[in-house]
């Protein structure tokens, strides 16, 4: 029953009772609800909304906070004013983003409030436009609805584990036989890569004079470096990686590690490619730290995808990668995907004639220590059948930097 009907009913019932019982004085009880009804009829719903919203930062690292400031003005009417926005689940709200204010008759309501948001995981998160609902105090006459501003997107970068230069050098030192692999700069090939801004130290003959004249800033041609080892990273983003919670589960760990690995290898001047199995996203092998943004974009809104793209198919689809020296598969080894992994490893060897390193993420540590230990034993047994070096990582026990060190050690040895 609508509230208006209830109030009308309470106004009329005393009349009916007075007639029905013959106690005519009961009809007087109608006067009070009638006066409230009449007063409600005379006042307008809150209207004349103006909303301004500012968001402090649109690009944040996971865990950092941005302040959202909202200013609301309600010019006319009287009643309750509900204001708020819808924040995507990946953003944690600190404070309150949905508020209620009282608009009194005859005065303009001007209020300001703010709250903070912080991304709990990587991705492109959104804050919806601000919606305002104005209602009379008793909710008798429907509502005035307004929506203001546009959707705000906040791009959250994952926390990228990085190694100190000294750690990188020590890894490099272990591979003295292959100085080019981890050298700061390789010899340029004749394969054109991109036009970029001139940097001190660039040879004069690399300047693109036409482009420089057109844009008015010194630009140089960059060519793909020659002799670089190519590392292809395969990150599993299928539904099976949905184990664990939305913020620290297997998928988030896998993608965080993938990005950290890509970032470090690009810094070491290797050619790096990335394939997200399940999400069907492929970043062809490239060099230079500028290329990192392509990897970041690919990873930001990935998986877990319900698309059952098995790892062998992912390998098949990444054939365009060309020459690959090392493939790193990052997944959660289970009895259900172990045979697919075996096929994928076989296919990688056949297609690229490369070495393979497997990173096995164990997300069960967040559930229970005993479960983790049991799963570790089981996983070791399963991975033992694959015939490749395996790096175990329990995200609840080891930080991303430790995992990265272990993986880089494996990369270094494999190369």
């Amino acid at each position, binding site marked *: 029953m609508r509230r208006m009907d209830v109030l009308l009913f309470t106004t009329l019932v005393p009349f009916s009772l007075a007639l029905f019982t013959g106690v*005519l004085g*009961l009809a007087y009880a109608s006067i*009070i609800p009638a006066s*409230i009804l009449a007063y409600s009829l005379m006042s307008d719903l809150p209207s004349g909304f103006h909303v301004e919203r500012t968001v402090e930062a649109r690009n944040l690292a996971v865990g950092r906070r941005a302040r959202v400031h909202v200013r609301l003005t309600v010019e006319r009417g009287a009643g309750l004013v509900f204001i708020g926005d819808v924040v995507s689940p990946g953003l944690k709200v600190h404070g309150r983003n949905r508020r209620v204010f009282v608009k009194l008759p005859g005065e303009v309501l001007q209020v300001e409030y703010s709250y903070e948001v912080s991304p709990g995981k990587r991705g492109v998160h959104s804050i919806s436009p601000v919606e305002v609902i104005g209602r009379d105090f008793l909710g008798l006459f429907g509502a005035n*609805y307004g929506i203001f501003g546009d959707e705000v997107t906040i791009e959250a970068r994952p926390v990228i584990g990085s190694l100190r230069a000294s750690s990188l050098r020590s890894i490099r030192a272990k591979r003295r036989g292959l100085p080019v692999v981890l050298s700061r700069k390789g010899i340029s090939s004749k394969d054109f890569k991109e036009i970029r801004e001139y940097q001190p130290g660039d040879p004069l003959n690399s300047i693109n004079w036409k482009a420089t004249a057109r844009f008015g800033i010194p630009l140089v041609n960059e060519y793909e470096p020659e002799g670089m080892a190519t590392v292809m990273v395969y990150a599993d983003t299928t539904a099976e990686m949905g184990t664990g919670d939305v913020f620290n589960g297997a998928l988030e760990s896998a993608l965080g590690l993938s990005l950290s690995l890509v970032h470090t290898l690009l810094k070491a001047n290797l050619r790096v490619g990335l394939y997200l199995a399940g*999400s069907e996203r492929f970043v062809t092998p490239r060099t230079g730290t500028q290329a990192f943004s392509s990897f970041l974009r690919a990873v930001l809104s990935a998986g877990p995808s319900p698309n059952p793209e098995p790892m062998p198919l992912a390998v098949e689809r990444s054939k365009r990668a060309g020459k690959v020296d090392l493939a790193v598969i990052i997944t959660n080894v289970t009895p259900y995907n172990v045979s697919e992994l075996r096929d994928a490893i076989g296919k990688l060897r056949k297609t690229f004639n490369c070495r393979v390193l497997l990173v096995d993420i164990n997300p069960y540590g967040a559930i229970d220590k005993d479960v983790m230990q049991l799963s570790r034993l089981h996983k070791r047994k399963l991975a033992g059948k694959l015939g490749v070096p395996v790096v175990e990582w329990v995200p609840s026990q080891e930080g991303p930097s430790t995992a990265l060190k272990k993986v880089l050690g494996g990369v270094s040895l494999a190369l």
Partner: protein
Amino acid sequence: MRFRVSTNSLKLAVLVSLLPLAWLASLTDVLRFLAGNIGARFGISVSPLLLGILLVIVPALIYIYLTGDLIKPFLLALVLYLLPAIFGIDFNLLDRYVPGAIMLFTGFLLALFITWLEGDVKSVEGEESERLFISSLREVLVPLPLGIMLTALLLWRSSLGKTPRNVLPLAFLLPLLLFATVAFALHFREDQNEQVQPAKKSYLILRTVMKAGDSFILDVLERTERSVTFTLSGGFPVERPILLKLEWDDKAPEVVVLMSPWDTQTLLKTEELRKGEETYFIYLPTSRAPSSPGIPSAPR
């Protein structure tokens, strides 16, 4: 110390309006017999009215304290109070029975408003909720003194509802009718200054709750004359509120389908809003939409 009005104190204060029922109960043979028995056995003189208060207000107090529900005790009290009027009441009691009925009915109205307002502001936590509640209730009750004044006048004219000749004085009807007419006229008046401008921009506003990626990418999958299907791809699956504002340069569809890999929602056009040169088409999941049974209309 300054007395602070709170929701709970108001709820308890409203219970005072149950006194007429306690008075009516004290007139019954049962309570008189009980009072007499207590006096005889324990040597304590207890008035039937006190016993009535104990038997009416204390159980109501306990019930409200335990459940927080004000409506049911008041409805029950009203029904019990009206029973003598239905089965016949002593004429000499009318001058107390009628004001008592008005008091009880006013208490019921207050209980109703408290329940409504409490439900409206329950999304707000802590002291702000109390503040909103009290401010709203104060505003709602602005016309209450006027209503009480008119009622008191009518009661005075009719010797507290006892003299039928003066029960419905016609002299009061004219100002009441005038008041009602003004109220209706004010409510249904149209703003003459507001000029309708041709719409330049249209937006689709999609509101629902569904299982979709925590950070999804929206794409148009299919577009027909009556419906549009959007896909929401990517992200970690989670039951989440969705509020989307999409610029639309075509005729607004009647049906919008949102498809994520884990859920599908059918939204129907429910409202069209004009704001200056902009038009907003609101789409909500309705019970008619096959994929949305039991989905609350407002995002959480």
